[in-house]
């Protein structure tokens, strides 16, 4: 098994775990955490795909890597908005 496959499988488990937390947890903040876990799983999956695409002297395919950077920042913006909504809801 290669490193890419290993981390790809790890990503699959992360998505499953996050989804479980999202469904089962009653507290909204825990749902936000779980949702971030799903996001991380998807990003790692992208990372594994990028690693498989290593070529031309690069350690990995830079296009999916750049997409992940965009994704992390947008996920943060969504998290911040969700937290603000949550704090407003329970004030």
């Amino acid at each position, binding site marked *: 098994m290669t490193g*890419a496959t290993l981390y790809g499988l790890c990503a699959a488990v992360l998505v499953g775990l996050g989804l479980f937390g999202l469904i089962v947890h009653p507290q909204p903040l825990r749902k936000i955490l779980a949702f971030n876990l799903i996001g991380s799983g998807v*990003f790692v999956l992208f990372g594994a795909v990028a690693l498989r695409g290593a070529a031309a002297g690069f350690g990995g395919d830079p296009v999916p890597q*750049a997409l992940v950077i965009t994704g992390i920042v947008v996920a943060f913006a969504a998290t911040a908005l969700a937290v603000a909504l949550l704090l407003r809801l329970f004030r």
Partner: protein
Amino acid sequence: MAFDTGLAVVVLGVAVWTIAARKTVAAVAGFVAFGLLLALVWVRLAAPDVALTEAAIGSGVTGGLLLGAATRLRRIEPSAAGETLGIGLKLAAAVLCILVATGIAAIVLLLPEPAPTLAPQVAKNLDRTGLGNPVTAVLMAYRAIDTLLEVVVLLLALVGIWSLAPDRAWGGFPGARHHADSDGLLAFVAQLLVPIGILVGIHIFWVGSTAPGGEFQGATILAAMWIFAVMAGLLDTPAVNRRWLRLLLVIGPAVFLAIGLAGFAVAGGFLAYPEAYAKVMILTIEVPVTLSIAATLALLVAGPPERPPNG
């Protein structure tokens, strides 16, 4: 390989904790640890740029945001705890999640050989951007429209947060005022670390054209240092109706858009750069964009205005 397996097991263990912990604060602490370990995973995946982003945003700033929220929500924790699912529903959810995970795992195992890749195209055109870091080249040249839209998304999220302000605090100061602590310890820590942090942020931004780094990572560090200074009581958050603040927030996207539109005239397409000036134009975009992203990220963490703008 043994190292990777061990790392993956630790990452999954911390992820399980984040879901299973009873206390929310403990779960958030677990999530911060998870982000840190993920940074190691990204280094192993030959993606140091992503590792920087994950360490700065995924672990650092998100951790700060969620820790603050968890402490503020502690009071309502018991009231929300009564609505747990029955055991049957939990089992059904577990089965569903195992199915999803298995599906993704199957896809991972069945990925096509040889792996499709865009790396050779990036390598072939890298010289034309004048940049040495392929990831920055993708973000600023080949997929610049994604980056432009991303900056706009950040701004929209901020508008969304500001719109949650109560009427009396409309346009006012975000968050509570932090005062310097009595013995000045926290203020001292901040005075020591914030200038170093600003230097590190500028360094990470600057090396981004040739080495891992770039405007998002640099901006995140700058934002974190600003939040640091606010927490220590060295600064107050600015009222959100200040004109200079609004200008700072939109200058990045505005310059980005202007240069993008200028691309029609000088290079025959939206966000196209004339070859000889590609690097200069990319830097012209990056500097204001970094400032705008830093301000936006910091205000996203600060939250909606809570104190009225005058007094």
